[in-house]
């Protein structure tokens, strides 16, 4: 049992210290988000994940950007225009700034996290639109652990893990800051599967995602992501459970890959 625990700690430690070998500048992944109810698929939105180079006077960072846009048939029904950004170190994918700007069916919310790595704290700004149209703002200083990341950086970190070294059933956990609360996201390796997608028939790593202590992503393998079993580890397909039916994310195109 001790040996097993030690192996697991070493495995997690190795994964956390991993350098970025997977994600390069100028990568663009386009996905179609669909709603699946008893096998009837309805395309709802387009999701894009892009990377680019951002230079400040002192350093160069990588901008990880995720955008969600509903298709025009849905715009009159429930318009979504979401922008998620994370400014990370290009070598270690450590985030320094996170921004979330969501506009969903008239609901507006803005979140910003400025990571103060040395003091292990995060300066958080939260903005919401009131019923009368005015903006309400809240500023907070949050104490976080040294390895805490945001949602976007965690998704890219998952791609950077050495999954080829993992055995079926191995799990890796990450501290994620979302809505000013620190939670633990667990990625569990379930094995390999062949997936047919718009970018071809690919052998993929099947990974279950769960959020410890939350009902949002329950840990019963119902939220699964498939990453190509190559050096780019492109997410080609994702399946997630929502209160009524299932959601799906399918890749449409992948350009500017590093490897």
């Amino acid at each position, binding site marked *: 049992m001790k040996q097993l625990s030690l192996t697991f700690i070493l495995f997690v430690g190795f994964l956390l210290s991993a350098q970025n070998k997977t994600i390069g500048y100028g990568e663009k992944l386009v996905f*179609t988000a669909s*709603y699946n*109810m*008893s096998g*009837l*698929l*309805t*395309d*709802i939105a*387009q999701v894009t994940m892009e990377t680019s180079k*951002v*230079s*400040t*006077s*002192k*350093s160069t*960072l990588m*901008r990880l*950007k995720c*955008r969600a*846009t*509903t*298709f*025009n*048939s*849905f*715009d009159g*029904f429930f*318009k979504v*225009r979401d*922008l998620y*950004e994370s*400014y990370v*170190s290009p*070598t*270690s994918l*450590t985030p*320094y*700034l996170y*921004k979330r*700007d969501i506009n969903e069916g008239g609901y507006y919310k803005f979140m*910003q996290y*400025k*990571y*103060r*790595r*040395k003091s292990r704290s995060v300066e958080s700004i939260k903005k919401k639109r009131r019923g009368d149209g005015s903006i309400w703002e809240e500023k907070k200083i949050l104490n976080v652990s040294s390895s805490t990341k945001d949602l976007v950086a965690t998704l890219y970190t998952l791609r950077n893990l050495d999954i080829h070294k993992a055995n079926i059933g191995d799990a890796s956990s990450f501290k994620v800051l979302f809505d000013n609360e620190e939670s633990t996201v667990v990625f569990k390796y379930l094995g390999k599967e062949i997936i047919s997608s718009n970018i071809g028939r690919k052998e993929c790593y099947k990974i279950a995602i769960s959020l410890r202590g939350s009902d949002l992503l329950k840990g019963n393998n119902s939220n699964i992501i498939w990453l190509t079993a190559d050096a780019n580890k492109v997410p080609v397909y994702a399946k997630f459970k929502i209160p009524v039916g299932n959601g799906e994310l399918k890749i449409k195109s992948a350009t500017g890959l590093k490897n």
Partner: protein
Amino acid sequence: MKKLLIILGFISAILGVVLSVTPLFKIALFPTIIAFLCGLGLLYLAKKKQLKTKLIQYIFLLSIVSLSFVIYKSIFQETKVGNTEELEKLDESSEEDAIKELEDLEIDD
């Protein structure tokens, strides 16, 4: 039995038509199928007991209308992203703001 089939058939047929004009039009297939089955059941009863078929015709008509909408939309409706002009502007301004915010941060690597 006849009354139950008429009520269920009408509710399902109307629900089918309403859902078929929404963006989630594919879901309209479920109530449309129920309405169609109710219509068939009523037709069977009508033949057996020599009843009027006027109401059955309305159920079938509504089912055909919703089915036509579903088929038309499935074939001809394109999945195109709506107007993203505002999002593009936000994207640009957000990056500019982020660079300013990053200037006063201590970045190790």
